[in-house]
C-alpha cells in the first residue's frame, strides 16, 4: 500500500510538472494573440501544443501514472476546453468569471468587515457606530478624529491618546487617555476642578472613576496594567461632553451614556494590553446625582458640627452642592462659575488619587502640624495660605488629602476658620481619626 502511495505521489508530481509547462506555453501564445488585437484571441492557430506532454519512457515504471494522466482527456476547466468556446461564449464566460470574482470578493469583504464594509470604530477602535450613536442621541452622522495611543519615551509620561467626536450640529465629545499629572501645574488644578466636582458620582464596584452628565473618568485597573509607582498618578481615560452648568441637576440618562462609553474605552484599552476580563456596565449601580443642599446652620457643606462663625460671611455664599455616593472623593462646591468653584472643601479618600496633591503638600505656606506629632513621627503634612489650606494625612487606607480652596480672593479668614474642624470631622468619618491639627500662627 505504501508502495502504491509513493508511486501515486510521484506520478502526480510528474503530471503537475508537465502540465505546468503546457500552460506556460499556452500563456505565452495567448499574450501574443492579445497583442494582435481583440479579434485574434479566438483563433487557435498558433503552435500551442495540443497533444499534451511527450509520452513517458516505458522503462520508468513510476513515471507511468504521470504519462497516463497527461495523456488523459483534459479536465473541463482546461485552457484547451476554453479555447473551444466560440468568441461569444468566451466573452460571456469572461464576464461571468469577472462578475463571480467581484461578487465573491465583495462577499468576503462584507463577511470580514473589511474595505468598504469596514465598520467604523472610533476612538482607537473602541467605539463602534452604535456606541457613538448612543453618545449622540441616535445620530449617525458623527465624524471623529484621533491621536493614536502611544508612548512618550522621553518625558516618561506613560501612554497617552486623544479622540474627538463631532456632530455637524456642533456637539462635541472628547476622550483622552493619560496618566494623571502629579507635577507642578498638573492635573490637580483644572482637571480636579472639573473631574472631581460635586456633580460627579463614583462609578462604584471597586473602580476608581466618576461620572456626571458632562464629565467622566475611570482609572485603568491595576490588575491589568500593574501598580503605578506611588508618586505617579493613575492611568485614566477621561471624557468631556460640553459645558458643566451648575444651574441644572445632573441628567441621569446623559450620565449613563458617558458611563457606558468610558467603561468601553477602558475595556478596549485593557483588551489591547492582553487583559481578558471586561469591566461590567456600571450604570445600574450609580448613586442618585447630587442636588443643591439646604444646609443647616451647624453643618456647613453638610459636615456636622462645622460652622462658619459670623453669619454675615456665611450668607454671602449660595447653596452648596455636595457629591453623593461615597467613593474616591467627597467634594463640596459653592458658587461655581465656569466650572471653577469659588469655595471648595474636598477630601480625597483614595490614596491613588491623593497622589495628585502629594507634591503640593511639601510646598510653601505656613506649615500645619497635628497634635501628637513628634520629631520622628508625624500624622501628615500641609500648609495654610491665603487661598488654600491643604493637609495630607497618613491613614490606614493610605494617604488622604484634605483641601479647602478658594478661587476668588478675600476668603483667607473663612479658610482659616473652617480648616481644623473640617479636617477633624472628615478624618473621623473616613476612619482616620482622631486628627487634631494645630493652626500656624
Amino acid at each position, binding site marked *: 500500500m505504501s508502495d*502504491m502511495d509513493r*508511486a*501515486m505521489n510521484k*506520478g*502526480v*508530481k510528474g*503530471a*503537475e510538472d508537465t502540465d505546468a509547462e503546457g500552460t506556460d506555453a499556452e500563456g505565452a501564445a495567448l499574450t501574443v494573440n492579445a497583442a494582435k488585437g481583440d479579434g485574434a484571441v479566438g483563433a487557435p492557430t498558433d503552435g500551442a501544443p495540443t*497533444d*499534451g506532454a511527450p*509520452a*513517458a519512457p*516505458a522503462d520508468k*515504471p*513510476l513515471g*507511468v*501514472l504521470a*504519462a*497516463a*494522466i497527461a*495523456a*488523459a*482527456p*483534459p*479536465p*473541463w476547466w482546461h485552457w484547451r*476546453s476554453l479555447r473551444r468556446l466560440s468568441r461569444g461564449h468566451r466573452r460571456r464566460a469572461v464576464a461571468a468569471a469577472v462578475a463571480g470574482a467581484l461578487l465573491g470578493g465583495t462577499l468576503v469583504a462584507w463577511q470580514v468587515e473589511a474595505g468598504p464594509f469596514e465598520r467604523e470604530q472610533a476612538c482607537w477602535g473602541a467605539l463602534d457606530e452604535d456606541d457613538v450613536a448612543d453618545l449622540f442621541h441616535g445620530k449617525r452622522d458623527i465624524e471623529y478624529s484621533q491621536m493614536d495611543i502611544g508612548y512618550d519615551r522621553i518625558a516618561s509620561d506613560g501612554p497617552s491618546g486623544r479622540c474627538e467626536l463631532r456632530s455637524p450640529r456642533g456637539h462635541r465629545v472628547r476622550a483622552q487617555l493619560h496618566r494623571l499629572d502629579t507635577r507642578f501645574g498638573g492635573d490637580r488644578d483644572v482637571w480636579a476642578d472639573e473631574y472631581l466636582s460635586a456633580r460627579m458620582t463614583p462609578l462604584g*464596584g*471597586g*473602580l*476608581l472613576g466618576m461620572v456626571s452628565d458632562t464629565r467622566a473618568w475611570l482609572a485603568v*485597573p*491595576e*490588575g*491589568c496594567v*500593574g*501598580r503605578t509607582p*506611588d508618586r505617579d498618578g493613575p492611568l485614566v481615560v477621561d471624557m468631556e461632553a460640553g459645558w458643566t452648568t451648575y444651574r441644572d441637576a445632573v441628567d441621569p440618562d446623559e450620565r449613563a451614556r458617558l458611563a457606558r462609553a468610558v467603561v468601553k474605552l477602558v475595556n478596549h484599552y*485593557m483588551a489591547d494590553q492582553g*487583559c*481578558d*476580563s*471586561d*469591566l*461590567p456596565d456600571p450604570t445600574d449601580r450609580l448613586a442618585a446625582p447630587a442636588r443643591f443642599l439646604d444646609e443647616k446652620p451647624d453643618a456647613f457643606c453638610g459636615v456636622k458640627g462645622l460652622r462658619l462663625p459670623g453669619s454675615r460671611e456665611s450668607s454671602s455664599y449660595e447653596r452648596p452642592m455636595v457629591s453623593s455616593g461615597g467613593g474616591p472623593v467627597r467634594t463640596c462646591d459653592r458658587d461655581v462659575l465656569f466650572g471653577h468653584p469659588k469655595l471648595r472643601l474636598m477630601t480625597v479618600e483614595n490614596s*491613588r488619587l491623593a497622589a495628585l496633591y502629594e507634591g503640593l503638600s511639601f510646598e510653601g505656606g505656613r506649615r500645619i502640624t497635628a497634635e501628637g506629632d513628634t520629631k*520622628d*513621627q*508625624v500624622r501628615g503634612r500641609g500648609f495654610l495660605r491665603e487661598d488654600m489650606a491643604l493637609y495630607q494625612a*497618613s*491613614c*490606614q*487606607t*493610605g494617604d488622604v488629602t484634605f483641601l479647602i480652596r478658594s478661587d476668588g480672593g478675600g476668603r483667607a479668614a473663612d479658610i482659616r476658620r473652617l480648616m481644623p474642624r473640617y479636617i477633624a470631622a472628615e478624618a473621623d468619618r473616613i*476612619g*482616620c*481619626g*482622631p486628627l487634631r491639627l494645630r493652626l500656624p500662627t
Partner: protein
Amino acid sequence: MTGESPVGSSGGAPGDIPGDSGADRTHGADAQRLARVRRFVRTRRGAVATGLAVALLAGGLGTWATDTWPFDGRDQYCWGAWEQDSGPGVLGDEGFEGDDGRSRTSTGTAPTPGSPRGECRLTVASSHTFSDGDKDRQRTTVRVRYGPPPKSAGQRVSWLGGYLADRAMPLPGGLPGAADGNHGILVLPERCDARDGRPTAVTLDAHEEAADDDRVPDVPDLGGSQDVAELLVAAANKGMKAAGCAGAEPLRVTSVLPELPERADTFSRGPVCRIPGLDVRADLTKETAMRLVYQVGAVNEDLQSCSARIARSVRLGERSDQPLFDAVMVREPRLTRLLDGVATTEAPAKGWRGTGDFAADRRFVRAECAGRPTAFLLLGTPTGATSDYFATFTNAVARRLGCAPVAPTTDAEGGRR
C-alpha cells in the same frame, strides 16, 4: 491538493479520448496495477469513493492543522478544570522558565457527590542550561484543594489567616475570596456547604522547589494574582460540577482586580502599616529594627491585613524573612462563616468584647462591629515587650470601621477616643 486531479478528470471527462494507451506501453506488474487503479478511478463508484477518501483526508488534515476536535491536542489538568493555553500564565508557554525538558503533569482526585473532597497537584518542570554550563531547574507545583476547612479550631485560624494576609487582595466582582501571586482561597456558595454546616472552600498554593545553591528561595510565577483568581474559579466550577452542587451559572471572574497591594515598606519611621500606636520598633534591638519590613494588604470594608517581618540578612546567611506577625480583619460574610465554631462562647481574655480564642502564637476574636460580625486574627507574635500588637491592631481597625473598641483600652488608647 494535487491528489484531486484524477478524480476531476474521471468525473466529467469530455468525449474525445486520446489514445488510452499509457498502460499498454508498459510491461511491468506495477504498470498494470496502476492501470487498474486508473480504471477504478474512472468508474462512477470509484470516483465517489476516491472523492470521499480525499475529502476525509482533507478534513482530517484541516482539523489537525487548526487544532480543533478531535485533534485539539490541548492537555487538561486537575479534573479537567484547567486547559493548556487557556489564559493563566502557568498553563501557557510562559509557564516554563527553561527551554529543555519541559513537562506539565497533574495528579489527584476530583470530589464526588458522596465524598465532596478533592485534591490535585499540577507540576511544571523545565530546565535551562546557561552558556557557562550552569543548569537551572524549574519545578513548580500548584496544589488545589476542594473541601471544608480544617476541623481543629486552631488550625482553621492559621489556615484562613495564611490566605488573607500579606499581599492577598480580595477577588474581583464580589467573589468571596482572596488571592495573591501564588496562593488564593475561594468560598463556594451555600448550596455546597458540608452536612455539618461548614462551607466548602477551594484553595490554591504554589510552591517552587528550591535548589541547594539558591541564596534566596525562588518564588513561583503563575502569571500574577489575576491568573491565580482565574485558576481558582476554574477549579471551583469543575469541582462543584463533580460534587454535584454546581449552579445554573458557573462562577466567573467578571472583572480585573481593581487594585494591587502596596509595596512593602522598609524605610518608614511611622507606625507599622500606618496603624496608630502599632509601634514594633520599640521592642526590637536597633540592629533588627532596621530590618523591619511591613506589608499593608487590602484595607477596605471587608478585609484588612498587615504583615510585619524581619527581612532576611544575606550577610548572616539567612535564606528567608523571619515573620513577626500577620494581623487580619475579615468581615466578608462567607469568609467569616469559615470561622464559625472556632471561638468559645466566652470572651478570649478579660476586658475583651465578643468571643474568641487565644493561644501562644495565634489570637482570634469575633465581635459585632458597626452592625456586622467581624473577625480579627493574628498569627505569630501577638505581644511585644512594651505593647500588645493584637489589641492595638484590633482597636485601631475597629475605630476605622466606626465601632466601639473590641480590646480592653489602655489609658493611652482610651485617651484618644
